[in-house]
């Protein structure tokens, strides 16, 4: 099989963690949906930061502090360019995508959601894009509605139209399901929401690492994503349209987010610092910059094409298996590089255990998407997911190991 645009054997050499045996077998990492591995340039950037530049950012007058600030703020501008935000002031560092989503709920949400309002989300969401809205709806007396899915895990188009109404204040929707792999019709959803005056928050945790994203073309109001799923360390990003961010109250209070503090009042710093209280994860920010450099050299079109080829290959292989149910769209055009499945007569925890003995890292459970599993009538699934370093031979090993699982469970 051809690998459009990516030199995967060269890429694999950049990932030290992949060069090892586990239980005497070559490590096969198929859990990038949970977190990606980190290439040498990212590890080196963080190591170098600690060896040569470590200091707190933003207020130091000395050499180290100025270098640390330049690296950390330089990385922010790389993020800005990567998602094509208009201004670096629209790029806020957070702890992870979950914190980015909660930031919007606690600040924009508390100001703008009132009793009787509706928030629309979908059945494809990760819990982090459901629970904050449940909490907010409960606090405000608002209603949370779900766009349902068909049997292939695709959002029902007629519900996108019928559930987003004049009552809707916010639509919170994923770019790509972390279980079904479904790539959602964001343009349709955003156009519909904006035509009725609703704001749209996109959960890009599974989208931004895997495909080109242009926030200006997409016209989303907010975009949350995490660095650690895109080769970077554990850090998150919230993008928001500037006018919205300017009007929002701060999130956490503390140092760096203020302009002036008096006994009885404070005033706020400029964007994006208004939303960044306290000492941030500086080395992680620097690592994020290195990860974006790495992905930019590969090209996000090429990343998407590579994963599209892998999922196409995997779906064809899985079709030939008996007793294995695959979730999500059958058409790889509407799907990212994730494949969640259920092997008849087995529990995913047992499956993942057997996979581990073969050196394969897959995830077992509800993958923080209980409502979707409930819809499918499943408590849990086994999930394999692909990234830039995976190859078709690893899909072959995945399929072979499913055969081993079936053999073990048939014999007993």
């Amino acid at each position, binding site marked *: 099989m051809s690998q459009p645009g990516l030199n995967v054997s060269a890429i694999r050499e950049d990932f030290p963690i992949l060069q090892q045996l586990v239980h005497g077998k070559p490590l096969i990492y198929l859990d990038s949906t949970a977190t990606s591995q980190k290439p040498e340039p990212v590890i080196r950037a963080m190591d170098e930061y600690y060896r040569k530049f470590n200091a707190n950012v933003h207020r130091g*007058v000395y050499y180290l*502090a100025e270098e640390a600030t330049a690296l950390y703020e330089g990385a922010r501008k790389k993020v800005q360019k990567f998602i094509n935000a208009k201004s670096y002031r629209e790029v806020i560092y957070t702890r992870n995508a979950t914190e980015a989503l909660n930031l919007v709920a606690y600040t924009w949400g508390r100001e703008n959601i009132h009793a009787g309002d509706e928030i629309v989300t979908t059945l494809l969401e990760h819990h982090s894009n459901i629970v904050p809205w449940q909490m907010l709806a409960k606090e405000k007396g608002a209603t949370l509605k779900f766009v349902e899915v068909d049997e292939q895990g695709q959002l029902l188009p007629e519900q996108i139209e019928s559930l987003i109404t004049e009552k809707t204040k916010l639509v919170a929707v994923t770019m790509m399901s972390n279980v079904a792999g479904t790539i959602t019709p964001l343009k349709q959803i955003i156009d519909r929401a904006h035509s009725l005056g609703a704001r749209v928050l996109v959960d890009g945790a599974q989208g931004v690492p895997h495909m080109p994203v242009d926030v200006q073309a997409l016209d989303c109001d907010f975009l949350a994503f995490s660095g650690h799923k895109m080769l970077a360390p554990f850090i998150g990003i919230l993008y928001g349209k500037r006018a919205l961010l300017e009007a929002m109250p701060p999130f956490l209070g503390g140092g760096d987010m203020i*302009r002036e503090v008096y006994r009885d009042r404070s005033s706020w710093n400029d964007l994006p610092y208004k939303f960044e209280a306290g000492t941030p994860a500086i080395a992680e920010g620097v690592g994020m910059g290195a990860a974006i450099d790495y992905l930019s050299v590969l090209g996000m079109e090429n990343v998407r094409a590579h994963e599209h080829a892998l999922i196409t290959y995997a779906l064809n292989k899985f079709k030939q298996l008996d007793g294995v149910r695959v979730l999500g769209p059958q058409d790889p055009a509407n799907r990212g590089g994730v494949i969640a499945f259920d092997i008849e007569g087995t529990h995913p925890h047992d499956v993942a255990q057997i996979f581990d003995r073969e050196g394969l890292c897959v995830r077992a459970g509800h993958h923080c998407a209980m409502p979707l599993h409930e819809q499918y009538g499943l408590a849990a699934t086994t999930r394999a997911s692909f990234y830039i370093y995976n190859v078709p031979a690893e899909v072959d090993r995945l399929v072979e190991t499913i055969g081993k699982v079936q053999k073990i469970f048939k014999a007993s």
Partner: protein
Amino acid sequence: MKMDELYRELILDHYQHPHNHGEIPDADISAEDANPLCGDKIRIDIKVKDNIVADVKFNGKGCAISQASASMLTDELIGKSLDEIKKIDKDFITQMLGISLGPSRIKCALLPLKVVKSGIYGINTWPDEEDE
């Protein structure tokens, strides 16, 4: 830059004996801002006649660089039209002070100009930062 160049006589003289220090009670334009990096604060009052700065006074507390910059900038403003003031930029300030400053200290030098521009034009961005 050596220390004796950074804190050269001209800077220290303006710091210790600032020009145009004080307030204008019936000012046409007043503005105040702080540097969130260090808490330095500057207020500027401007009296305008026929679109020309007739008088200007500043008040505030801060480091030698910010106070000297305010003192020298206010000297420059008197007699200038509001349109001319709009053109004053970061390079003008560093040439006026005759020193080069790193990314953290440049804010000290630019705070007075930022306050002037926010008062006259409502421009609230730092003169050394792009806004995008």
